[in-house]
């Protein structure tokens, strides 16, 4: 498909290789579990959930990963600290995949990170996310816990263009000395994963896709996003969903192809229950990319790449 002039870094997180040029390493796919509205959750404050249903979902994603060759990660979302600790303990036991620790509350994310450290799986924990709203307290805690990997979110509420997203990553923001990438480096986050920050369609979604290619060109770091959030919040599509659910699902599932074709290394594809539909679509595009890279550039895809497993 294409190669970048700048060196592309490949990080290994919990045994999963993530990064590189399209076709070189398979796209890593992360399904989310225990999110707001997840039917497996019965009490989001306490973290009560249907263990059998959650186990099935995690195993199904593992199976899809084994089938296609696309590595997987589990994104754990929690609203409260008790819930986060319970969820993480369960997921860490169920799967050996890297785990994204996600909450919109910093205290909950940090509690999850500390739990990962104490439970011995910090090496496969990914803090989600380091973003523009980080407080000094949060940075102090991250400096203490020293995760090696984090999502670095290029969300700029002031400017959704590519320039705005770059500014958040590169330039001092809100009184801090450096951009988010410099901050991540200072905190010892040696394996940053750049999330281009999907914004709503009509509010910068297009730039969030283009920025995948630009970010990889400029920084060389593994890049991706939760692009499915754009069609999922698209008012027109949500109305259509009432009469044509298949169309909604097609848009939701295929949206990953947009960033994949820009060189994305990871896709936060949304509900983990969609794994059986997402993995084949992304694997298909990976095969195209690998074939192009091999035939035109002489780079052999990785051993477990969908190109080898599915052709």
């Amino acid at each position, binding site marked *: 498909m294409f190669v970048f*002039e700048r060196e592309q870094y490949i990080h290994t997180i919990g045994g999963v290789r993530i990064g590189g040029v399209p076709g070189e390493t398979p796209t890593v796919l992360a399904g989310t579990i225990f999110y707001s509205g997840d039917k497996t959750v019965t009490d*989001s404050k306490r973290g009560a959930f249907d263990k059998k249903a959650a186990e099935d979902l995690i195993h199904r994603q593992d199976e899809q990963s084994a089938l296609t060759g696309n590595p997987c990660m589990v994104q754990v979302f929690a609203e409260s600290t008790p819930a986060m600790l319970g969820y993480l303990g369960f997921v860490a036991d169920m799967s050996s995949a890297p785990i994204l620790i996600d909450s919109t*509350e910093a205290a909950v994310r940090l509690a999850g990170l500390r739990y990962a450290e104490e439970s011995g799986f910090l090496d496969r924990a990914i803090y989600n996310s380091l973003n523009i*709203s980080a407080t000094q307290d949060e940075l102090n805690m991250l400096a203490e816990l020293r995760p090696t990997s984090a999502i670095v979110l290029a969300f700029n*509420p002031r400017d959704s263009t590519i320039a705005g997203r770059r500014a958040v990553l590169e330039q001092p923001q809100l009184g801090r000395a450096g951009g988010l990438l410099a901050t991540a480096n200072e905190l010892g986050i040696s394996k940053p994963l750049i999330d281009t920050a999907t914004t709503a369609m009509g509010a910068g979604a297009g730039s969030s896709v283009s920025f995948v290619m630009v970010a990889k060109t400029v920084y060389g770091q593994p890049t991706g996003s939760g692009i499915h959030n754009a069609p999922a919040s698209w008012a027109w599509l949500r109305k259509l969903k009432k009469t044509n659910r298949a169309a909604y699902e097609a848009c939701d599932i295929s949206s990953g192809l947009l960033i994949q074709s820009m060189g994305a290394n990871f896709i936060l594809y949304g509900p983990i229950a969609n794994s059986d539909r997402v993995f084949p679509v992304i694997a298909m595009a990976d095969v195209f990319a690998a074939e192009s890279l091999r035939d035109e550039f*002489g780079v052999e895809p990785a051993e477990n790449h969908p190109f080898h497993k599915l052709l």
Partner: protein
Amino acid sequence: MSTRATRREWPPVPGDFEVRNSAGSVALCTLGKKIDVDAEYAIIGTCKTENIGIERMVVNTISNPKLRFFVVAGPEVPGHKTGSSIRSLFAGGVDPKTRRIAEAEGAIPYLENVPLEAIDRFRSQLELIDMIDVVDAASIAETVGELERRNPGPFSEEAMWLDYGRRAATKARLVTQTGDISVIPEYGLVLDLNFLLLHTQQSVVVVATHPSRTVVEPRAVETGTVLFVREE
């Protein structure tokens, strides 16, 4: 950024909402959950994010001076704390420098894409009716009914319309100019007048132009032809 006009279609910004009675005085936000409320409100909709979501709501309310009450109901949005961010917005507005909603608990509560005058207008025109975490449709409907009965009439100023989300296209116009002289067009051979050198003209695809150019350039290599992405 802001304009005042009379001939516009309301609401100006699309979203996850429904208009029932545009002459009504109540705007009803049910946060992260759709709630079927049987009442004579003007507009009902969800709002999930504490930044862009609130911005869109502001744009859609200040463009209708008949709206005087802003009911926030439905379950609080976890993490985003959109409901309490709206409450904070009414209470303290935004910091003029950082654009952060004062004292907001949400994850990223910044309103960057609406002018301060629009935020002031929002806070002046509308009265907040705090029903965060109330999900009972009948209770909400009853409140809406009570509010309609004490409708104070339209706001004293005319509708405020914002060109929200529409970026001027001038920056996006791409004009490529070179001083090269085409020598053999069939082969793309050109004479570079700066250096008086013959070279093959390269066509590139431009991905971004600001703050630097990122281009995709077809390049022949030993093994084949690849698209080469680089920053200029």
